[in-house]
């Protein structure tokens, strides 16, 4: 997959105008970075074309740009292509659709336990458990998963949850610090119940951290689903990529990989836009 832009970046907002909080100002840094990114991609494609056309790199190792592009087109328009894309898409939806709400709910509970420093044992145990799950290569458990669930939709989804869900829980638990003691005191003084506190005070404040956790979770979910498909499957993008790889169908193989990269980039961009929107109340400076 192509490198994820912005994975190690600092905050996406750069300068901010004191009085103008309009849309162009807010999105300008984003547009600028997009332009640069696609500029780099264009240059890379240019180099690729030059290198294959001139024969510098053999066609066995690197397919020509043209045939890759048409393979990509085939993938996106043919019925088999779309069918497999659909299969993977549904798996992603299922895995992420579970990771996000369940992860946020569990993460909130865990975060509050740790923040209030009650039940130290629970907090510590949960931390250890989550770290272990995240650090262990779950790949080795795929055969076990297949024995339990068969080669199926749910096998892929559960495998992807192994990373996707854990990351959301950890990120959300860490987000408890965003609701500081002072604001909690105010909430107590207003006699807010847990529900009101969650929706009005905790969630909006923790949102930047949560969005970042969700972004990472989605990326790991994609990786998880694809890996499960690559291992054993009979449908999906991972399945197609495996077939093409085995059959040395390079243009198609590259097309598949590029498509996944594009998917990651689109997701990243969507999250960046979300972040830009959230920075609305951060971009204005003090009078």
């Amino acid at each position, binding site marked *: 997959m192509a490198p994820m832009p912005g994975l190690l970046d600092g905050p996406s907002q750069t300068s901010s105008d004191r009085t103008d909080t309009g849309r162009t100002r807010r999105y300008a840094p984003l547009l600028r970075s997009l332009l640069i990114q696609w500029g780099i991609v264009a240059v890379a494609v240019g180099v690729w074309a030059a290198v294959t056309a001139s024969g510098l790199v053999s066609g066995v190792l690197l397919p020509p740009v043209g045939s890759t592009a048409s393979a990509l087109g085939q993938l996106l328009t043919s019925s088999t292509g779309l069918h497999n894309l659909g299969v993977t898409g549904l798996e992603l939806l299922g895995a992420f659709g579970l990771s996000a709400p369940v992860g946020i709910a569990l993460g909130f509970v865990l975060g509050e336990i740790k923040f209030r420093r009650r039940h130290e044992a629970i907090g510590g145990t949960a931390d250890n458990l989550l770290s272990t799950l995240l650090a262990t290569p779950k790949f080795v458990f795929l055969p076990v998963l297949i024995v339990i669930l068969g080669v199926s939709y749910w096998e892929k989804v559960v495998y992807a949850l192994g990373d996707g869900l854990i990351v959301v829980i950890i990120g959300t638990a860490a987000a408890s610090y965003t609701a500081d003691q002072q604001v909690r*005191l105010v909430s107590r*003084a207003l*006699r807010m119940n847990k529900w009101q506190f969650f929706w009005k005070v905790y969630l909006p404040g923790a*949102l930047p951290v949560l969005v970042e956790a969700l972004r990472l979770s989605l990326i790991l979910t994609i990786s998880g689903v694809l890996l499960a498909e690559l291992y054993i499957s009979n449908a999906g993008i991972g399945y197609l990529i495996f077939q093409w790889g085995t059959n040395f169908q390079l243009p198609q193989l590259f097309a598949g990989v590029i498509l996944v990269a594009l998917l990651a980039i689109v997701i990243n961009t969507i999250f960046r836009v979300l972040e830009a929107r959230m920075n*609305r109340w951060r971009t*204005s400076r003090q009078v």
Partner: protein
Amino acid sequence: MNSGTAKARGAAVPSEQQDVKGEATRRRDDIEVKDVSVAYSTATGGQHVAVRDISLSIPVGRFLTVVGPSGTGKTSLLMVLAGLVKPTSGSVEIGGCHLSGPRPGATSIVFQDSSLLPWRTVLRNVTLPLEVSRTGKIPRAEQAKRAKEALGLVGLHKFASRYPSELSGGMKQRVALARSLVTEPSLLLMDEPFAALDEQSRYEMGEELLRVWDRLKITVVFITHSLSEAVFLGDEVVALCGAPGLVRDRFDVPFERPRELTVMADPVFGNLRGRLYDCIRLEKDLLP
């Protein structure tokens, strides 16, 4: 923002004895602090006594300032009055009713940190207490109306759609004050609300607070480090000294209302201030 407006809105004006869901609403309440002690468990497993056997009587409508050095338990006392901390011994009665928990409809607190929610506009910050009000659902339009009135009281009517990050420290505290007044409390507790402001802003905010208070005439308990602020603002000053805190001095401030900053030039002001300083300094000498 008085009972006259409440009647105009068609809301029921509570009688002296009426209680809504166990919370006092608009009764005129005297406060009795009876032999209150507050002790906290420390991280090392011991006990830290913040306040010991304090008794105070605060008649309704009084502006009481509590002054004293750090560590004398002023904040603990305020927390007890707020119902946020249960006293280790003793009790607080408001209007003859034992205080058992926070009373968001009747008591409001302003802290040193304005604690505004940065993702909400100024208006939505002020409507927050109304949104979580336990005395019945208030429609959005009504919430906005009351919030605008409260903002008008503190002179920030034009800033309703701004965000807290666009405001100065003093303005944020004014929003915090508006938020505390939007529920029309009968008791306003303030824990060094102006301590984070520069001296100029402090005095301006003090004057502003008095202007607002002159209109509402609710009971206020105001904690401060500043001796001048204590004498300038209060009807009555209580000096808490020592660790654990005890009431070392208590006097009425003789100046008329409404008060101007010019009162600080009056020699009586200086005497009172000096009296407070002596009390505090004495304590310092006694400390090991």
